[in-house]
Every structure is written in C-alpha cells, then in structure tokens.
C-alpha cells in the first residue's frame, strides 16, 4: 500500500519552454508564482487544483509531466545531476602521515 503510493505520480514536473515576454503581466506573474523565471528551468509542484490552474493558464509556454515523489529534485540536486564527473577519485592524503608532523 505504502510502496504503491510512492510510485504513483504525485507531482507536476514543469519546464518553462517559452518565455512570457510581451504576453501580459497576468501570465508573467503566473510563471513567477510557479517559481519559473528562466527558460528551460524545471520546478516540481505537488498535485493541487491551484497548480493545475496555473499550468493551464500558461499551457502554451510549459512542458508538464506527472512524476512520483521520489523523482522530485530541488534546484541544487538538478544542478548536481547535470554536473560532469571530475574524472578522478581522491583515495586519501599523505598529509600528516609522517611521525614528526603534528596531527
């Protein structure tokens, strides 16, 4: 029961594909209230009538998917996932390894 609720879509994944420039303040403010302020930015919102209404207000500008709760990412997590790997791993350090070095 709990497991099935984890995998059921519970959030909107909203990506701003087109800007609201020159479409009027109402649509611009709708995007701000969704937390979108630049193109190709992605935000996650739990399913609610308020969010659904906002999405439909700007339906020409966004791309929407329904995702389960474990797929929700904050902006920091999204950035970390985009980041390229460093190409090496730090195994350890020789700092402080010699007997006369202070710990």
């Amino acid at each position, binding site marked *: 029961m709990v497991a099935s609720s984890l995998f059921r*879509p519970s959030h*909107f994944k909203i990506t701003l*594909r*087109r800007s*609201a420039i*020159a*479409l009027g303040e109402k649509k611009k403010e709708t995007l701000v209230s969704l937390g979108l302020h630049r193109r190709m930015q992605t935000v996650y919102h739990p*399913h*609610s*009538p308020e*969010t*659904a*209404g906002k*999405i*439909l*207000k700007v*339906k*020409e*500008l*966004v*791309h*929407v*998917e*329904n995702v389960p709760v474990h797929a929700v990412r904050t902006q920091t997590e999204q950035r970390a996932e985009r980041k390229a790997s460093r190409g090496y791993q730090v195994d350890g350090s020789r700092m402080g390894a010699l007997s006369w070095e202070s710990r």
Partner: protein
Amino acid sequence: MFGAFRSTSVNLSGLLWKTPWKLSPTRKANARARLKKVDAVIEAVRASGIQCAALDRALQLPKEHEMDPRDKYTTFSPTSRGYRKGIHKVPKWTRLTLRTNPKGF
C-alpha cells in the same frame, strides 16, 4: 534586372516587411506540432486526476486532430473579406490559444 542593384520594392522604398498571406507547409507543420504540445500539457493535467474549473475549460477546447484545417491556420477577423485571416497575422499567435472561432464564421 538581376544583381545587387536590381530595382525591387524593398530597394525602392526602404523599410518594407511583407507578411505572406498564408502559411508555408513548414510553418503549418510547426503550428500543428505546437498544438500537439499544448494538447499534451492538458492531457498531463487531466491524467493527474485533479479537478478544477480551468481544466474543464481546457477540455472544452478541440484537440489538434479534431480541429478543422481552416481553424488551425486561419482565424476570425471582422474586417477581412470572408471574415477570415491567416492565423499568423495575430500578434504572438504561437503563444496564444486561438482554437475556436465564432460559430458560422
């Protein structure tokens, strides 16, 4: 007649922008693709199971495959001959909902 200094309407009158009176096949294909993307957004909101007035209104709109080509590429205009003009004459038409027209026009 040919070459860089030929006398064209652009050369003779300075600033001259011309809007074609109908959409090219490519622009029509792009317009259909945009309509389908908006349909996908409405479908995603419907699939979430949320019920709200905005969704009821959005579901009233005809889907891309239900629309008449006439409604996809032209729109009602009270001042044009035949009460229709190319949809690309509407400012910001790629980001607006222009799916329905007055009945009978």
